Structures are given as C-alpha cells and as structure tokens.
C-alpha cells in the first residue's frame, strides 16, 4: 500500500490551518490538491521555458513545444490512446463536452435522439439541452434507481434506432457510483450509437484504458487529477474528430488563410485554436506522472479502505441517510442527517477546519430524484487519512447535537 504520511509531505496545503485547526480537505471531488512536483514544474516552466509554442523556431519556443507535446504523449500513454493527435487539450471537462455538442449541430436533425442519464453533472446535461433546442433532436434520460445506480434495463429500452449518441458519466460526482460503462458502450455500439464518457470523476481514482473500452469520446479535467486549473483533455477517435467542424476559429487551427477561403489544420491543432494553457498542460503531464509514481492500484486500494472506514463510522450516526450506499463506488459519500439543511452541517464543519461540499453539486436532477435541497458530500483522496475521518465523524456528531 502507500505511505500516506510521506505522500502528505508533497502537498503543502495539507499543513494549512483553518480556523486555528488543521485543515481536513474532504472536497476532492470538486478539485484535488496539488503536489510540489506539479507546482514546481509550473514555476519552472515560467522560469526556464516560457514561450509561445508551435510557431516559433527559436530554442525557447522549441523547448516549450517539446514539453507541451511531451505532456500530450503522457496523456496518450496513460489513457491507452492509440495516437497522440487524438488527444485534444481543453480548458476542462466542460469545454471538452461543448466541443462535441457544438460540433454535432450540423449532424443532427429532429428525428434523432440523444441519451443522457439522470445522474449527470450539469456540464453533461445543459450542452445537450442547448443542442436539442437548436436541432430539434430529442433528449432521453436513463433513470436512476433509488440506490444510486443506473437502470440498465431501461437504458436498453431507450436504445432505439434513432439514438445517435449516448452521454454518460463514468462516475457520479454526487454519489460516487461507478457506472458499467463497458456495458453501456457495447450496447450503444450494437445499436450504432456513439458514446461520450464524462470521466471528470473517474480519471483520478483508477486507471482507464480508452482503447480497450472502445469509447468514442472521453473528457476529463486536470484539476481533479492533482493537476492545475484551466486544463483538461478531450479524447476522440480520429475519424470522428476529423468529421467534426472546428470549435473555435483562430491562430494555430488553420493551415491557410485568405479572405476567400480558409483551410483547417490537422488534428489536434484543428481544435486547439489560440495560445493554449501551456503551463497548465505541462503541469497536467507532471500530475499524471506523479500519480503514476504512487501507482493507481495503490491509490484505488487505499481510497477503498478510506471509503469503507468512513461509511461504517458514519452509519452509526443517528438519523443519517447516505445516498448511493453501494459497493461499486469511489470514495465519495453524500449524506443528510435528519432534516438538517446540508449547509448548516457544512458551516459547522468548516469551523472545525473540515472542508466538505454542500448543496446540489451541479446535479439538480439527483436532488429532485431524492426530493432534497442538497447533500453534505465528503470526498476522499489518497492523501487523506483515517484519523482525519475520525475527526470528521466526531465533528459531524457535534454538529448534529448543536442543531438538534
């Protein structure tokens, strides 16, 4: 397993004090913390390599370009992608989804149907609603069971011949549910539907091989993977990416510009218009290398042990209700206690230096499903400890008695 106390030394923020007590950071599903190995790479970029890429032939530009393209190779290798040019750097998951949704505008008509699920993040709902508004296509919803899993039988029924695309998250950010995406993808492909997987919550917790999954599109954000803000990637099978129009016009995405006609550049540049987040992309590469140096198997096993420990302890609290208390989940626990408002619990936990997220977690349909205003969500990462969980459950009990 992993040596959590050694790992914690890599994360300067973990020794921070909040309200005069040690910070306990359990908001990892919103954003993960950043190790020195990543912070230093970013600083080092600005101190030694900062330059605009791809277009310059001086040494600094060549150096920055090599580092940037090296990060693309790291992403490619880590996610089992066949070709580097199938990795498009984005500003995050939301951006990646919007590249696809705006690209599909011309391909869809009012007889087409799209499928999403009831447990999607708003970023994987709103773009498809906007797309359906424009094209007249129909949005169909895979319902969620009350245990927080998807109803796959209903999914099969929804998969009618008119369904062109299926958009599902790999892991629910609110419930932690790991969805059976291999089955979802295979069923879709049998139906000639293409699949986009929102990997915002999965990429940080276990290793994923996109070639084996045979997924058509996959998106994720670096800031949930120990990486910097403002960067993420979109993977797409090259023949599909080739068939999409470019998302943005600008420098770098074109190969020839005249006022009569403009030719678009090849992948991946076609989708990377303008100066990209160069430092961010390089930091993203460093983050993946860092996590791999710890080992995703270790991360997965350790986080599972944290989840089991916390779940067991929380269940002992009077009046608690955990949403999505199942086996196949990552280290996220969403709960409410009695009829206390989640923000009341969150505010009190904050006084104990404990950062959890409260509210709807950008998943209003899940809240509507359970008919609740929100949840308290504690999400653990490989740098959290069991003793932090002890302090957390103690604090939850104290909050309950204050509110009671």
């Amino acid at each position, binding site marked *: 397993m992993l040596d959590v106390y050694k790992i914690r030394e890599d994360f300067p923020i973990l020794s921070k004090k909040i309200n005069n007590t040690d910070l306990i950071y359990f908001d990892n599903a919103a954003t993960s913390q950043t190790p020195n190995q990543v912070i230093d790479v970013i600083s080092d970029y600005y101190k030694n390599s900062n330059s605009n890429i791809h277009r310059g032939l001086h040494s600094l530009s060549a150096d920055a370009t090599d580092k940037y393209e090296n990060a693309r190779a790291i992403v490619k290798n880590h996610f089992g992608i066949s070709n580097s040019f199938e990795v498009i750097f984005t500003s995050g998951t939301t951006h990646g989804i919007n590249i696809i949704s705006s690209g599909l505008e011309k391909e869809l008509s009012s007889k087409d149907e799209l499928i999403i699920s009831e447990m999607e993040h708003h970023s994987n709902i709103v773009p498809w609603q906007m797309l359906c508004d424009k094209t007249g296509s129909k949005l169909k919803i895979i319902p969620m069971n009350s245990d927080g899993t998807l109803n796959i039988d209903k999914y099969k029924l929804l998969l009618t011949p008119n369904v062109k695309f299926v958009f599902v998250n790999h892991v629910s950010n609110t419930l932690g549910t790991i969805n059976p995406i291999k089955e979802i993808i295979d069923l879709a492909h049998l139906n000639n539907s293409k699949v986009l997987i929102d990997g915002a919550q999965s990429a940080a917790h276990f290793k994923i091989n996109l070639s084996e999954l045979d997924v058509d599109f996959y998106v994720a954000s670096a800031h949930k993977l120990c990486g910097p803000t403002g960067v993420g990637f979109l993977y797409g099978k090259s023949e599909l990416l080739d068939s999409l129009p470019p998302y943005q016009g600008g420098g770098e995405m074109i190969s020839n510009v005249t006022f009569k006609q403009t030719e678009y550049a090849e992948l991946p540049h076609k989708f990377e218009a303008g100066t990209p987040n160069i430092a961010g992309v390089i930091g993203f590469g460093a983050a993946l290398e860092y996590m791999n140096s710890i080992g995703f198997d270790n991360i997965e096993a350790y986080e599972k042990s944290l989840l089991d420990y916390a779940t067991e302890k929380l269940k002992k609290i009077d009046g608690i209700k955990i949403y999505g208390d199942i086996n196949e989940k990552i280290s996220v626990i969403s709960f409410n206690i009695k009829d*206390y408002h989640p*923000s*009341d619990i969150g505010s009190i936990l904050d006084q104990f230096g404990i950062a959890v997220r409260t509210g709807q977690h950008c998943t209003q349909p899940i809240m509507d499903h359970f008919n609740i*205003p929100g949840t308290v969500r504690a999400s653990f990462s490989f740098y959290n400890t069991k003793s932090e969980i002890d302090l957390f459950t103690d604090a939850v009990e104290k909050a309950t008695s204050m*509110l009671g």
Partner: protein
Amino acid sequence: MKSIQQIQNEIIDEFNFFQDWSEKYQYLIDLGKTLPAFDSDNRIDSNLIKGCQSKVWLNSSFNNNIIIFEADSDAIISKGIISLLIRVFSGHKPEDIIESNIDFIEKIGLNSHLSQTRANGLLSMVKQIKIYALAYQSKK
C-alpha cells in the same frame, strides 16, 4: 428608536461574551429556531434571494416612511443570521438603510459567510435589503 449603528454595536457587544465559535453558532441556531417561519404564501419565488445555497425568502412592507422586513430560510444558521439582519434593518427609514455601513458581520467573526461565494449569499441578503430601500425611497 435606536439607530442602525447602535443596534450593530449592541450585537457586537453580545457576541463579545462568547468564548468561542461554537457558542456563537449555538446562539445563531437558537435565534434561527425562534424566528417565526413564513406561511407558505410568502415562501414564493419572487421573495427568494438569488445566490444563497440555502433558500432565503425576504418580504418587506412600507408604512409611515419605515420599512418592515420579514424573512425565512430553510437552513437554520441562515435563519439566525437573517434574524440579526432584521433586527438591524427592520423599522428604519429607507435613507438610513441605504447609507448604513454594515460591519457587524465581520466584527462578530462571521466573515467566512461574507465571502464573494454566491453560495453563501450573506452579501446578497444585505444587497437585497438595500435594493428594497432604494425602491421604496424612489417611490416616495
């Protein structure tokens, strides 16, 4: 009638008695519990303050150049805070409300509730109260 500043000072004095944050929060929770809930007629969207993670409804009426505020929330700490806001603002003239400088929240150590975070929305509440005051003043 005490001025807005006097009431703020009173509140600051009261909070000075508390030893630590848990006593303050307990007090807010108790205030929240005693603030009468709205009847469902007033729990309507047009009374809802945007930018709060918990729902906060604010209602006002204007008579004799004086604004009366009532408020409610589905979260108890928010209710406690708005009960303080009502104590500070309700019963005052629009111009006094507009000109008032609200510093008690910071001084009683609730500034984490004062962040730009839309989710918290304490700022939104104060802003909404001042917007009402502006609206009533311009109606005069």
